[in-house]
């Protein structure tokens, strides 16, 4: 259900290009903005308002992202919306981006069907929206970066290496312990320092030890840098291939895996600011960075959205005041405070490090420290709020105390005279079943239930998930840097055991996909897409992928033949399948190590199924004839000595030896031919 305009425009542009092949002006820089995060980190706030519209220093997040794109020279932005798309659309249509003077044309693509970034990228490709390299961001990126240098580097690389590099990720330098470093997004990266190529990307996830594949340090790259001082800005410059062939998926878990033989490069910035607001802690950090002017020129008083209600004056100690703000007698704005238009503050209040939205009413003797109040909030007298988020039209009654990391979602009424413990989340929406439903009701006696529909649910568990810093993480903070163990031989039980399960599940999924493919006659390209996305979802490496795929395909006929194990039948069932799925193999088998992996998988399969041993030669022959496997590699595999007894037996199989012999002869012939 895409917006009609954008689809048409894409087609029109294609037509125009076709008619004038000689002229080649540099194509306008395009961007894909995904205004949905496909996760529930901001639940329950995001239930009422899509994440892209959450106010950061009284300006919607998506406006920061669009301003960043425009400032960096983007001329056409495709905004992909899913959740609450109508609201996002309405917001943008009212904003300056949709005025005719805007240098950045914003187009909407909406669909309720997007479930991940992969879906979006697939759609970008299907509608052929992008024509050349484009910038991919999510709608919650705040940045004052200028990507033009990264873009140039990216283009140069693509010219030099014939489109091997599919994307350039942008990182910001910031040392461990920085407040804008998100715990979830803490990463360790291995890079080739000469070419800036990303070799390995791993989330730390609070681990103290990290495993790096040995191949990283064994291949020809001279200098491998392992860095833990980088922040993923979630801004990337992608080539059009990203969406079509490979879809590297910055999915909700955000694992950036290396794509099938293609390369990802990186660009590190030190001076400029870039952050991705992935949870409420980051929300707090980035908000305070905006107030402290780190994102200059995107500061509140610049009024970059050009909205009349958003004009602020900036005075000492980073105090920003909107129009018609009234401050009572004896009230102090200490530092880093932003007050929106029309807000009235009573007397003897003390406010610091806070953001207050428009048209709020704040009583007397209120203490706000690190509070983020949205629009229309009513706060009565003697309230104390620390490091909390208070959404639209919340009413906080007298003598309420909010301990750090509380969230009051829209239209909640709290009080009077109650203390909310740390990490309380109160919402009108009941937490869904998927959420851990440990409802620790804050006792209702203290809560004023004027409106019957107001349900107060203080799930402190989800609260700490959203906001709290798990103690374990903070303990490790200081040590994590020094504890980088590279290529350590010690088995890491924590990392290893779930991985095995993953592979099993992945194997089943692949099997299911192929079965469906067989039944519904789905084309190979689509199968590749599906398997790719599965691969990313389970974070499967390429070699594992190869083994699983070979195994699954070889086992495939077994299920159809039931127990009727006969090598003749087996092979006749396998042959058409192999023929059908040749492109599938070809997509994954590219380097010689892939060939070898595939062969090992085949070997393993035949070792497990003794009765079928005889058909191994035929299978290999087919693989060879379909040009999936190369003769060198097969010979290489055959001559490997360090195999088990069973393996040796397998190699003694007559037919196999005949096949190998034939191969050797064929090779000699061809080399003879070369000499002539």
């Amino acid at each position, binding site marked *: 259900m895409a917006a009609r305009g954008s689809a048409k425009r894409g087609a029109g542009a294609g037509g125009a290009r076709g008619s004038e092949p000689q002229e080649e002006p540099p194509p306008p820089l395009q961007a894909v903005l995904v205004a949905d995060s496909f996760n529930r980190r901001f639940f329950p706030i995001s239930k009422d308002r899509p994440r892209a519209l959450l106010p950061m220093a009284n300006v919607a997040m998506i406006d920061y992202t669009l301003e960043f794109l425009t400032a960096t020279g983007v001329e056409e932005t495709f905004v992909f919306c899913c959740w609450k798309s109508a609201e996002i659309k309405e917001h943008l249509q009212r904003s300056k981006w949709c005025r005719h003077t805007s240098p950045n044309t914003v187009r909407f693509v909406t669909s309720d069907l997007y479930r991940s970034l992969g879906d979006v990228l697939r759609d970008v490709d299907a509608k052929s929206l992008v024509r050349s390299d484009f910038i991919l961001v999510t709608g919650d990126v705040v940045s004052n970066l200028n990507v033009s240098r990264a873009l140039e580097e990216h283009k140069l690389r693509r010219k030099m290496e014939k489109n091997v590099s599919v994307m350039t990720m942008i990182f*910001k330098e910031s040392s461990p312990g920085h407040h804008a470093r998100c715990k979830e997004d803490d990463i360790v990266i291995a890079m080739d320092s000469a070419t800036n190529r990303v070799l390995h990307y791993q989330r730390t996830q609070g681990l103290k030890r990290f495993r790096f594949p040995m191949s990283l340090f064994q291949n020809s790259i001279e200098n491998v840098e392992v860095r833990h001082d980088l922040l993923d800005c979630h801004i990337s410059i992608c080539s059009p291939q990203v969406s079509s062939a490979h879809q590297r998926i910055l999915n909700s878990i955000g694992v950036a895996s290396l794509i099938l033989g293609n390369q990802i490069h990186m660009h590190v910035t030190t001076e400029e600011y870039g952050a991705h607001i992935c949870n409420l802690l980051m929300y707090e950090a980035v908000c305070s960075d905006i107030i402290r002017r780190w*994102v200059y020129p995107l500061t509140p008083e610049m009024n970059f959205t050009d909205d009349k209600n958003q004009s602020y004056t900036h*005075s000492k100690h980073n105090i920003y005041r909107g129009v018609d703000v009234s401050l009572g007698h004896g009230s102090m704005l200490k530092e880093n405070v932003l007050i929106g238009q029309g807000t009235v503050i009573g007397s003897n209040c003390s406010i610091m490090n806070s953001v207050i939205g428009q048209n709020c009413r704040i009583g007397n003797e209120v203490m706000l420290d690190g509070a983020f109040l949205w629009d229309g909030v009513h706060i009565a007298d003697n309230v104390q709020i620390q490091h909390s988020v208070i959404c639209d039209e919340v009413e906080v009654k007298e003598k309420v105390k909010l301990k750090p990391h509380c969230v009051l979602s829209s239209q909640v009424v709290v009080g009077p005279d109650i203390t909310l413990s740390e990490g309380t989340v109160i919402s009108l929406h009941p937490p869904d079943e998927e959420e851990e439903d440990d409802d620790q009701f804050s006792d209702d006696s203290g809560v004023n239930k004027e409106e019957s529909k107001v349900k107060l649910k203080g799930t402190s568990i989800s609260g700490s998930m959203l906001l709290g810093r798990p103690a374990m993480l903070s303990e490790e903070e200081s040590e994590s840097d020094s504890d980088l163990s590279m290529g350590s031989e010690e088995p890491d039980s924590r990392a290893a055991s779930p991985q095995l399960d993953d592979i099993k599940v992945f194997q089943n999924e692949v099997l299911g996909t192929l079965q469906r493919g067989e039944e519904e006659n789905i084309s190979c390209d689509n199968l590749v897409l599906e398997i790719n996305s599965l691969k990313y979802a389970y974070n499967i490496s390429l070699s594992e992928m190869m083994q699983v795929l070979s195994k699954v395909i070889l086992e495939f006929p077994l299920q159809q033949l039931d127990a009727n194990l006969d090598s003749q039948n087996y092979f006749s069932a396998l042959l058409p399948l192999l023929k059908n799925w040749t492109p599938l193999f070809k997509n994954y088998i590219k380097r010689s190590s892939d060939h070898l992996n595939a062969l090992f998988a085949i070997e393993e399969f035949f070792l497990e199924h003794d009765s079928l041993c005889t058909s191994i030669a035929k299978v290999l022959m087919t693989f060879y004839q379909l040009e999936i496997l190369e003769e060198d590699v097969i010979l290489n595999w055959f001559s490997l000595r360090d195999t088990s007894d069973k393996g040796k037996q397998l190699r003694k199989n007559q037919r196999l030896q005949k096949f190998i012999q034939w191969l050797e002869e064929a090779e000699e012939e061809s080399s003879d031919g070369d000499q002539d």
Partner: protein
Amino acid sequence: MPGAAERGSELSEQIEAFVSRLRGGGQRPRSEDTARQTLSLLRKIIAHGRWGWAGELMDLIRTEGQRMTAAQPSETTVGNMVRRVLKVIREEYGRLHGRSEESDQQDSLHKLLTSGGLSEDFSTPYPSLRANVIEAINELLIELEGTTDNIAMQALEHIHSNEVIMTIGYSRTVEAFLKEAARKRKFQVIVAECAPFCQGHEMAVRLSKENIETTVMSDAAIFAVMSRVNKVIIGTKTILANGALIAVSGTHTLALAAKHHSTPLIVCAPMFKLSPQFPNEEDSFHKFVSPQEVLPFTEGEILAKTNVHCPVFDYVPPELITLFISNIGGNAPSYIYRLMSELYHPDDYEL
């Protein structure tokens, strides 16, 4: 007239681009360039805008001017140019209206009293007004081009042989001024580096290329070195109506040190930096940029616990300044009000 509509939208796009450029302001723009860009934009507005008579034109210029100045209040040059253009329109209208030259300046108290508050309504349409105004703006543009040279020409009157000159940061006008003097005289220049942006380094490099004996020192050494200095020559961003300066941060320190040692402080600034505004908190001339240069973002944990500020400008009160050298000659700070009234019409002080 599709052409007109197209031009109209093109014009508004240009204005939009200019405003967003001002707002971005990441790379410090030269005031002279800003002035020239503002003038050419205003010329386009006059040439292609829809207006019938002078009053309408002035409203148009005023609204656009307000938008441009609001985008970056610290770029006072923009507002100054808008005021100059308004003044030009007044003059041209007056000339066409058949008013004598003498009456348009500051009226005498007696005249003000007798005129009975009759203000001009600028409502008579004159077909030749457009061409006349554009012509006058072209003259303004030509005037702009010569400003730096005009200031530099006066260098020999102020810099003598074997003097020690101190300056701070980088100013194109001061650079030209010193280079001009160096063609005839030998003297020594001490440059305060002007942390955290250290524009002083660039200044020193440029000066030493001209074989001027140049020394760079840290800002902290300003007071210590001042006793050896014969003259302090600086540039500025803006001259305010009371003769005060909005100049690069560190200038106030320099001016105070100069005052303490009774060293003359000379400010080189072209007339277009004269701004009929008075210093006060609300107008926010000051500009705070990202604290990155003061304490890098990579610092880590400490950033959550500290407040870091990075102001770009200093306010230098007029009593610390000895002399202004502008493209029309040298003036004392107390005379600035007079220059101001020659440049701008009193009604335009507030845009």
